[in-house]
């Protein structure tokens, strides 16, 4: 199963970005292959509707869980429809590696 995390950079040491729709990268972790993949967020520079655009991108990748600092009002109903689990991480400064470790606990 794939989990996406909003990331500020493209390495496992990168810390989480506090924005969901406009974070520069998404870290996608596959807990079966134990592999990390980093994707540029195509919604990062969108004029409007960045959140929904990011959701579409992640849903196409087959993501089933998303970790972010917060989810906006336009995104929540779509994620609920798509049965993608929202996980709110409200501690700043955690790296991708740390978050994945926490998820696997």
């Amino acid at each position: 199963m794939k989990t996406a995390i909003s990331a500020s950079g493209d390495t496992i040491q990168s810390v989480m970005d506090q924005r969901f729709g406009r974070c520069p990268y998404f870290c996608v972790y596959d807990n079966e292959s134990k592999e990390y993949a980093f994707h540029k967020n195509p919604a990062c520079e969108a004029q409007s509707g960045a959140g929904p655009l990011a959701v579409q991108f992640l849903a196409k990748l087959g993501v089933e869980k998303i970790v972010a600092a917060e989810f906006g009002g336009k995104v929540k109903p779509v994620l609920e429809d798509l049965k993608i689990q929202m996980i709110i991480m409200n501690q700043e400064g955690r790296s991708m590696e740390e978050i994945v470790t926490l998820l696997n606990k």
Partner: protein
Amino acid sequence: MRIVVGSGKGGTGKTFLSVNLFCFLEEQGIPVSFADCDVEEPNADLFLKGEVKSVETVFQNLPVIDTAACTFCGKCHDYCAFNAIMFIKNLEYISISEELCHDCGACLYACEFDAISEKKKELGKVRIMQSTKGNRIVDGLTNIGVYSGVRVIKSAVKKLENQGVEILDAPPGTSCPFVTTASFGDYVILVTEPTWFGLNDLKLAVETVRGMKKEFGVVINRAGDGEDPVSDYLKKEGIELLAKIPFDHKIAKWYSEGKIPVLESSDLHKIFYEIQRKLKI
């Protein structure tokens, strides 16, 4: 002539200037009408007591997708410039984000399978009023939770009668609601205050109206004896200073009582006369 009264910063005196200008011109018997385009928080009616003649509801159309008829081709999604249609082909998922929809109609045009119809959504109300001297006053009020007031602003301005001088009290800031209001103007008055905050937001407003190629000038409100970074900026940029309205306890008191200071003070009367002269009204 349409005059838009705007400012980058909130609370600088847009409504103060526009209602005073309206009453000042009305007093001289000049045909003048007024539109409160600050549709998220209209407040000109605190000062302009008009008789309500009619109230109209403003709607927008929203697309409704019939998922039984939809072939999930994605064309409507590609046509939407506002990312309002969420579409995930492999999951056969499609939905509309109502807040993002601008009611442009592109998705209806795009759909080749008649899967998109429209429904109406109420955005707000426009009131048409008449002043005691018989001039038209219009204001708009956007419903709570509506994402953008642009359509309500457009509806309000349409209710003006296209005669004489029209004064449009713009919303604060420099985003879509301001740009929409300013787009109707022949001239834009930017109201600012002689502070660094005022200057910062004035620069944004100047950049916006210059981008729109609108003729404009500046009124410095609550001018005092202290430092005045705004005047220096105007000189450097060659921007017309229409007037300086002094920081005056009496003006604040009249205004707080819902009075029209220009009708109370001869000093203020002179200042507005100067604005009138510069605008060639």
